């Protein structure tokens, strides 16, 4: 929430920046609270895999934008 408020206060329009920061915060917080209960860990891991996939996609789009100048989103 603080991240969203701070970035929107600076009129940040890039959605990928918001999402990237959320993903980094998610991994930092889940790492700080490990080891977790096995049942909770399963859902946390599935969410982590999904967010990591999204992060890789964002990085790939940025690389393509830098290399070819084409903006996919």
């Amino acid at each position, binding site marked *: *929430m603080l991240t969203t408020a701070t970035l929107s206060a600076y009129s940040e329009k890039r959605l990928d920046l918001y999402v990237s920061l959320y993903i980094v915060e998610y991994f930092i917080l889940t790492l700080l609270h490990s*080891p977790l209960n096995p049942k909770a860990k*399963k*859902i946390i891991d599935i*969410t982590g895999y999904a967010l990591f996939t999204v992060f890789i996609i964002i990085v790939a789009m940025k690389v393509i934008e830098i290399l070819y100048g084409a903006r996919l989103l």
Partner: protein
Amino acid sequence: MTPTETSYILLGLGLTSTGVALSSTSYFILRSTPLTALGISTIILGMVSLALGRSQPKIPPEASTILLESGLENISAIIEELGLTSKAIYLPSSMTSGQPQALIPIHQNPYPPKPKTTLPKRLIVKYAPNPEDIGLLITTPGSTVTNILGSKPGPAMGDLEAALSSVLTGTIDLADAIKVTMGDGRIIVEVSNPRLEYRSMRVYECLGSPIASMVASIATEALDKAVVIDREEHKRGKLMIELKVLE
């Protein structure tokens, strides 16, 4: 499902569905990046709430405390009735009938002999050839906690610390952190912020507190050697447990 678990799951479903609605509306209709990002963060919070809902204990903590205390009161009554004053020797599952157990010698011996054969599954056992080498073989809270470990931990300091952390700070969440130091036939375990309060009970003088009992059981299983809780000290939010390994 307990009420707390239901609350978390409902919260998680609510946040996830609100997040999906907010992010899709903000992206396609309102074209607002901050609101879309807020919707995405709400989805992530919803998933975390669902995970927290699944991690709630099935049995309320008060019920667990009742079961633990009643068991300890019974053991304490037996120990007082028999006038036992010796410290318990924690034996690995290879020396007992399938799980680590505590042997309380009837007669005090500063150098108790190590059992040479596997002890039978009985309450009163003869653990050495001499007539006075008789003791009580007791299942402690630590005996059952080793079942939580998926595999037998290794004898190295790091393996023991990982096993203790996995159980005490992870699965049963009875402490914040565990630190292990090994050397000279002794193991020192530092437990930060233990959540079970120490009470002055006769059974604790023989078996150690429940957390010390769990630590000793896991340590004996990891080392595959008998251990004794030599010293237990509570100070400033830390529980220091010193184990002596019997060679």
